[in-house]
């Protein structure tokens, strides 16, 4: 067993961190798309990250903040990959029901961004 076991509190904080990474990846993608111009295809990728970020935020309890503080990384692709790595450590159980859709969504976005 290589995945470290997380306590319920850890899992909740990991979920919030995951949502923060995705939220700021979406903001970063949007900023980069603005730089590239209104016709940039990054606008669609940014919306995709935003949708997954909103799905992740919906899993976070009301006590945790799924938006702030901002992660230290700034590159949206790096943030997306960090989110993918972090998602591997979150256990799939009753407290994280619905996470699978987020994990699948992140995987699709990473593949979409790096194909």
């Amino acid at each position, binding site marked *: 067993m290589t995945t470290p076991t997380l306590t319920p509190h850890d899992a909740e904080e990991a979920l919030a961190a995951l949502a923060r990474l995705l939220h700021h990846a979406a903001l970063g993608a949007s900023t980069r798309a603005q730089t590239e111009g*209104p016709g940039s*295809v990054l606008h669609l990728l940014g919306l995709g990250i935003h949708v997954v970020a909103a799905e992740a935020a919906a899993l976070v309890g009301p006590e945790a903040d799924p*938006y702030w503080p901002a992660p230290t990384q700034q590159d949206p692709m790096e943030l997306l990959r960090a989110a993918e790595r972090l998602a591997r450590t979150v256990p799939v159980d009753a407290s994280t029901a619905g996470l699978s859709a987020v994990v699948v969504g992140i995987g699709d976005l990473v593949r979409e961004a790096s194909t």
Partner: protein
Amino acid sequence: MMTAEHVDQRAIGELLLDADAQARQLLLDATGDDARAMLRTWGEVVQAAGDLWSALPVEPGGSPADGATLAQIEAMSRAMHRAQLTHGWPGEGPTDERLSALTDTLRRAGELAAGPGQRVRLATEPARADLRAARMRTMHTLYVGAHAVGVAVRQHVRDTEATTSPRSARARRDVPRGVDASVRLASMEQLAGGYVGTRYSLTMAGQHYAPPANSERLRQAVATWDIQVHRTLASTPSPANLHLAANAQAALATTGAALLGAATRAGHVDQDAYTQRLAPALEHTQQAWTQSAGRWATLTTRGDRADPDLVHAAGELRAAAREITVDRVGWADAPTIAGRIDLTQAAPIIHQALAAAAELACVHRDVVDQEPTLTGPARVLAAWTRDSLALAVRDAAPVVAPVRPEDIRLNRIVPLTDVVRHTLLTEAEQLVDLTQTAMSVGSVLAHAPRDRGPADQAQAEAGCARCRPDERVGTAGAAMQHRPVPR
């Protein structure tokens, strides 16, 4: 009772694809805690699959043995249900929602197969191949589903053994009955697996697929998005929802430009109209929506969550737009897009989207202007107010409502300050102007595939229903002049 509005419009093939995906999803999420609820619900899944199988047309010359496998699985499922009643385990309790949703999907497919599906004639080989694919998909769903339930039951047995004494009542009840259930499920899985065998990909290749009817998906996604965003903003005009709404509108404007570019190169839209008026108008609305999205992103607070229905509609809008316009990581070229969608149908969809965007901009403006519950983080509002203060003094703007130092220190969630609301309102008014100009310019698209009807004419001249009188005059003027948007 299901109303006409809520009838599932998907075809049998789409329902079966969804059922298969739901079963795979179940495999990802199955845990020991779910085992008892899953065991209570599994029988319904098998029964729905059996009803569907019986309702599907019989292939001419087919052997009665073709249905034997599913009949065996149904018999095993009934036997397992009787054993559950006899032993009182897993007993009464909640059902598994995911398996219930899977049951509903299979039942709907069964209804279609028993109704309109009976009119299908199996005279051609493609029709017979499609039928075989439907049966294969049904069996594959049972195969994956049985495995998922088995995984959950075995995990439950292990959890019980690990956490309770072997002599406890719970262990003496759950462990042997769980083992018994897992053996029965493994038998069902092996039977279904034997049917699937190595023929899955070969059989599924015969599935009927009609590629470029995709304009329907995009049309539906745009319409669904428009309805949902209005519902959401009417009930919960929060920064998280406004952020997502603006972001999706920006992406829709970008996609619209890409689609119209392809339609122009294919000769379905006038070249001058596109380069001189449509493309600049879409660019300007895109930039305005993006600016708005950025504003609401900064005002989102820790307890604020986007409406799940809005998230779903945005996801579907993006998927529908992306599958037509994107190739790998860039925009698809015009011939590729033309191969995916009838470009004569694209223009009216974008025309409707432009009209809806103008209306939504008015909703957005009204929210900023009239919604008293809008809030934001104190530090963001303080910084924004401070930055705007110089401009406010220069332009003699309204009185500034300061943010209290105590609120800033604790970064409390506070109502918007007058300065911030004033800035947002100014930008929202600009957004209304830009989207209405785009709608006016977009009226040329109504000519593309069909004659312009009186409703289109009236809409272009009258503006949207939420327009203020002065805005309506401006819209009508713009429609008549087809003026180029200043760059």
